[in-house]
């Protein structure tokens, strides 16, 4: 449901430098729509970018942006959220950064359940470095680093997240921004770690996983009897992509019962940025011995 809120904040002075037709545009629009429709004030949002085409997304919004290091956007986002839980913290990164360079952070963030949303721009290539094989590239994918084609089996991001105990696992398609917006809203509102695996065509380097490819294969799980409340079923559902024929999109799994990290510590620790620090006494520490 669209609100009638003024959408002027969609427009920044500088405009994205992505290739015309890039899947990032659809994800960009969906993030902005989601935040706008949820009416979250701009100053309360931080978009944490990984490095790569997608990582620059925050620069073309009016929200706060912190463009981190390749692969490291997740721990940066976790630090921000732990320090100030009033902020809505969203990670924007690609399959290279989040599943290659920073896979360990991805997995541990799932089980740590810090309340951040991770938007995985999954285009199955390293775009900005000119099209090399990524952790989600299909076998046989040919690039400058794999001239004979990739020999490796791609990672399945949703399945990984589910095995790592993520409490919100979803997928969307950059070519369907209406649907993607709804998924992002749910991810942002989810009280814990949330993954949105966004299928994103790379019009310059990936000639297989195109808009047409996905358009023919994605289907919205919410239009089926599927219920996203069982992890084992969700794992099975997430494995549908492995045949390359069916791509379920929508919320694959959600568990709102498992407490987020913040909710577990909030009784013991007041929000960090709100604590006064000018007159702390450590006398008892010296004398406790």
């Amino acid at each position: 449901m669209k609100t009638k809120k003024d959408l002027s904040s969609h427009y920044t002075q500088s405009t994205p430098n992505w290739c015309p037709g890039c899947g990032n545009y659809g994800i960009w629009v969906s993030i902005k729509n989601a935040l706008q429709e949820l009416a979250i004030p701009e100053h309360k949002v931080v978009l944490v970018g990984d490095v790569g085409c997608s990582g620059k997304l925050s620069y073309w919004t009016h929200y706060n942006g912190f463009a981190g290091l390749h692969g490291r956007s997740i721990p940066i986002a976790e630090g921000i959220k732990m320090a100030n839980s009033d902020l809505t913290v969203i990670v924007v990164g690609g399959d290279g950064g989040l599943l290659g360079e920073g896979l360990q952070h991805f997995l541990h963030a799932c089980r740590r359940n810090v309340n951040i949303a991770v938007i995985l721009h999954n285009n199955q290539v390293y775009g900005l470095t000119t099209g090399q094989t990524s952790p989600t590239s299909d076998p046989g994918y040919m690039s400058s680093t794999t001239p004979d084609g990739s020999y490796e089996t791609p990672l399945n991001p949703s399945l990984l997240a589910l095995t790592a105990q993520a409490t919100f696992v979803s997928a969307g398609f950059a070519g369907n921004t209406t649907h993607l917006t709804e998924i992002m809203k749910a991810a942002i509102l989810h009280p814990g770690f949330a993954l949105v695996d966004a299928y994103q065509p790379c019009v310059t380097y990936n000639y297989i996983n195109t808009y047409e490819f996905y358009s023919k294969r994605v289907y919205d799980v919410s239009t089926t009897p599927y219920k996203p409340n069982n992890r084992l079923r969700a794992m099975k559902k997430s494995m549908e992509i492995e045949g390359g024929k069916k791509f379920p999109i929508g919320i694959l799994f959600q568990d709102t019962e498992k407490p987020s990290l913040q909710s577990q510590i909030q009784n013991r620790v007041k929000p960090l940025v709100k604590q006064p620090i000018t007159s702390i006494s450590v006398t008892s520490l010296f004398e406790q011995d």
Partner: protein
Amino acid sequence: MKLDNEFVIAIGGKAGQGVLSMGDFIRHIVQDLGLYSFVWVDYPSLIKGGHNVVFIRVSSEPVYAPVEYITYLIALDSESIEIHYDDMVKDGVLIYDKDSTKQEIHTKPSKKQPFFGVGVPFQAISRGINKSPRYANTAAIATLHFVLGWSLDGYKSLIKKKFKKKSQTIVDDNINAIDQAYQYVEDNYDTIFHNTLLKGAAKPYYAIDGSQALAFGAIKAGVKFTAAYPMTPATPIFDHLAKHADDYGIIAKQAEDEISAICMTVGASYAGARALTMSSGGGFSLMVEALGLSGITETPLVVINAMRGGPSTGLPTKTEQSDLRFVLHASQGEFPRVVLAPGDSVELYTMIQHAFNLADLYQLPVIVLTDKYLATSQMMFPQDIDINAISVDRGIVIKKKADIGSDTYARYLFTKDGVSPRAFPGTRGITFHSGSDEHNEYGEISEDHINRVKMMDKRMKKEHSLLPHIPKPEVYGNPYAELTLISWGSTKWACIEAVELLAKQDITANVLHFSYIYPFNIKKTQPLLDRIQKSVVVENNATGQFAGLLKQYFNFEPQHALLKYDGHPFYPQEISKIIHNTMF
């Protein structure tokens, strides 16, 4: 060597035998007797077994450095006797378990065995009380009391204080072990040992170790977030913060690796919390990319590197000062940074607070170097030091939109001193971009060459702007001495004591000590170097890293470099001996 006004107690045993807690008891007793103490430890990298030793230097005068001799050795196993046999002073006393010790130990000193031997069946005494060896250590400490001529009252009341909460039986059993052991020595040894240090008039002091000093200082400075990955010898600093986290409203997060730890720390700091991460050299190696992230995004960051023997896994539980050049240059590209190397527990406590202030005031990474030796040693912290002397200074922080003075907030505004007013995300009416790419004043990516130079200059200028906060190095001793020992970080007190020893050999020496390493305050420091007649740099590394910096920044070349990289800290006697033999 044995001095009248001091002695050294060593307790050796296998890891897991309770060596450290025995050391803690004895240090308490020493402190309660009004004597000064300095405690240091040596242990291997394993959990159970292996040789652990804790040394307690006891003196009627303040002492701040380790020494190489042992006066009283409590050996909990035969290996401890073997390892420390040659360190025992003439007429010293070896306290050992009569039944389980393999070596033949004589009661009286001889040419072959220059020290006394006091064998007591500690384990048998304990088994008689509890059917287990759990009170053997208590019996050993009681024996030490007999040897030293110390009254048992202090020890007994300490036992009561420590174990009262656990159970009365534990208290009673301990007291029983003390009395039985004491009785045993009294019955079997008629030797009168000469110890003149029965009590003293030490000024009240706290005996905290270096890790505690850093943790307490960080808490005082208002650290609210810390993340780390376990690595010896940095872990205890994190442990102390975690232990007090609830009381002080701190989040202490063990991360999946050091990269995550530093990135979380940068994130928390960007969000507005004072944040700290720590590791040893290996973990710091993994952190370096994010160090540059702090540099280019101008996010305040405090990192502690507790050094150990390198390279690679190196000597996990031994000390070294070999990461100095590394931390000075770590991370690609150029950005301003501060490197501090406190020299004792008071400096650790105060300088970590300076580190947080400097990081906030100048929005840059501050690296605090310490090492295994300093982090694990219990050094006297005089109680008359004002622990509230340093106030928190967070620098310029924009609190509301009206503070900006223009329509758009320029996070990286070009200013005279290079410091741009900082805002935290979440400030009403303000949003801004920060990032690892080169950027313009508004934080937007910019590859423009003119902006690049201006932005680099703006950042680098901060290294100059902060110089008024960098004090000159300290001089200890006669400023115009014929010889200057140049120390940095943890070698401070070994050098100061070496100067006292040299004086006894009619060599007038002083110490020029650097705790604030980088950036150098050249204007204030150069005159101190210029007046030096003869000098020796003393550092715990193989290549003379600090000596090289003196050449680079001051065109100063010391005559000698006294380098040690065997995993152990410097001993004052060792320094004075080498200087005496090679330079005079």
